[in-house]
């Protein structure tokens, strides 16, 4: 079981309030991702749950038990750190065994779990090596192995993939998702990368300046962002925001259109503009367009075969059914 409840939890560092009181429930077996820009408090929130930081006020419950003042080791949670945090003087085997040694698990049982974890994570050939002799991806697997053998009620991941290169990151992302499918254990995953959040999460918690902006499934956040911040943060490339006269036509202070929801044409359309940069990815093409009568550059996503170039005049038509409307405070207008 691994249901985690935060009840009016807040955190101050000295006089600075990094997390104003917030409520959040993470259900058993759920893959929850905390996402937000750097300094939004997502790692602090994870560390509060882990018990590595003390809450300033409020209550943390794990499986209905008050865990607010329980030391980290007694919470039944396992954590995977960004820097892997392996013990450099121990072999891979001893690293993985360490939490079991602390818990005084019998040696035969330790060995059984080490073998199982090593098999699952492709580490069997490396058990007698030191962390220093492993690649980044292997180190991260050891860190995950060390977490698995504890059989925790929940896994906490603190930006576990940000030290890996892009190709490896995609691979490890899949492995962690598969691990979740297999273990069905609660996982809380912190990242600043919205692609990781969208691809892995059952539930995304978008944080901004210590405040939860929205909680929901990836597609909920994509289709019905609660405010401009979430709308801009989720989705890549970023949503276009247009203010003024064009927004007023839709009865809003600001309208938002995702780049993939704009049709481009060489002849006719709602808005016209001049292409400043075109990025050809093969599968897609991104155009950055200076719109006539529009304040900001518009980003448009078109098919890979669309061949406009720098300086071309093009026409753009937003799909009417997916225009997001926001009021002056940046909140969504239903």
């Amino acid at each position, binding site marked *: 079981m691994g249901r985690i409840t935060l009840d009016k939890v807040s955190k101050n560092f000295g006089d600075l309030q990094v997390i104003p009181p917030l409520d959040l429930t993470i259900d058993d077996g759920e893959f929850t991702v905390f996402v937000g820009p750097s300094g939004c408090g997502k790692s602090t929130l994870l560390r509060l749950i882990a018990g590595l930081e003390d809450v300033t006020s409020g209550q943390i419950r794990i499986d209905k038990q008050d865990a607010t003042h329980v030391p980290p080791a007694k919470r039944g949670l396992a954590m995977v750190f960004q820097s892997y*945090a392996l013990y450099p003087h121990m072999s891979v085997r001893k690293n993985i065994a360490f939490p079991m040694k602390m818990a005084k698990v019998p040696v035969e049982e330790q060995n059984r779990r080490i073998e199982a974890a090593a098999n699952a994570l492709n580490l069997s050939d490396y058990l007698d090596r030191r962390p220093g002799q492993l690649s980044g991806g292997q180190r991260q697997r050891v860190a995950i192995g060390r977490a698995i053998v*504890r059989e925790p009620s929940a896994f906490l991941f603190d930006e576990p993939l940000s030290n890996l290169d892009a190709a490896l990151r995609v691979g490890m992302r899949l492995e962690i998702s598969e691990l979740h499918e297999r273990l069905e254990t609660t996982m809380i995953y912190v990242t600043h990368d919205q692609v990781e959040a969208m691809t892995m999460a059952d539930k995304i918690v978008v944080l901004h300046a210590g405040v939860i902006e929205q909680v929901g499934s990836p597609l909920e956040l994509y289709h019905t962002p609660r405010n401009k911040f979430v709308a801009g943060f989720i989705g890549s490339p970023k949503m276009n925001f247009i203010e003024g006269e064009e927004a007023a036509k839709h009865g809003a202070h600001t309208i938002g259109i995702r780049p993939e929801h704009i049709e481009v044409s060489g002849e006719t359309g709602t808005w016209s503009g001049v292409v400043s940069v075109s990025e050809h990815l093969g599968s897609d093409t991104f155009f950055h367009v200076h719109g006539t009568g529009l304040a900001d550059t518009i980003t448009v996503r078109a098919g890979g075969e669309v061949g406009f170039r720098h300086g071309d005049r093009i026409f753009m038509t937003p799909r009417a059914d997916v225009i997001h409307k926001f009021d002056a405070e940046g909140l969504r207008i239903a």
Partner: protein
Amino acid sequence: MARAITSQRKALNTALAWGVGLLIFFPILWTILTSFKTEAQAISDPPVFLFFDWTLENYSVVQQRSDYGRFLWNSIIIAGGSTILGIIIAVPAAWSMAFVPSKRTKDILLWMLSTKMLPAVGVLYPIYLIFIKLGLLDTKTGLVIVLMLINLPIIVWMLYTYFKEIPGEILEAARMDGATLREEVLYILTPMAIPGIASTLLLNVILAWNEAFWTLNLTAAKAAPLTAFIASYSSPEGLFYAKLSAASTMAIAPILILGWFSQKQLVSGLTFGAVK
């Protein structure tokens, strides 16, 4: 881009480095050579370098005249004792400064270091009086305490720098893995800090061994270490260069040998953290 270094340039650098190295080592070499000369050859003009009648006479005279073993034993007790006592006190201090720093930690560290800038003679009088009062004058205990205090700032600084290099996340991982503070220290921190503790130990043994100001001023006969042994041969009357050299060689030999065998450890310890 890597800087291109010609082989000519490399040879020049090597020669220069050897030159500087020999220049620094020359006084020690000269002392050792002189210890094997007769008193007459020792002061001959022009000086002889290698072609003289090698003799062990000075060593036997020095050995007969004074009890080298006793001085050596005192040196070992004083250098070793002050270092071990210093480490015992410095480890918890450096520990708390590195892992639970307060707003004043940096100030305290700098203040501790600033005591090293005070001329030692400035506190000789009060310490001398305290030693008389406590009956510590010319005792090994007294010297162990004074040398420990003198070197404590350096020990704390060195250990602090080492502990600082141990990433906090590793300790947090241990905490998450269920380690108590004792287990964290025993299984994670100490093994990781052993190279640091070892080179701190080594450097302080050397510093304490070579310390002359306090050992000369606070001892007479009983507790005198090898520094006093050398000093007893630099008499104002008569010239006994060869015997003084023999005494010096005997005094520095143990630490020279220790330094030679541990130089790798020492250098890596002193440059720790400079290059990741």
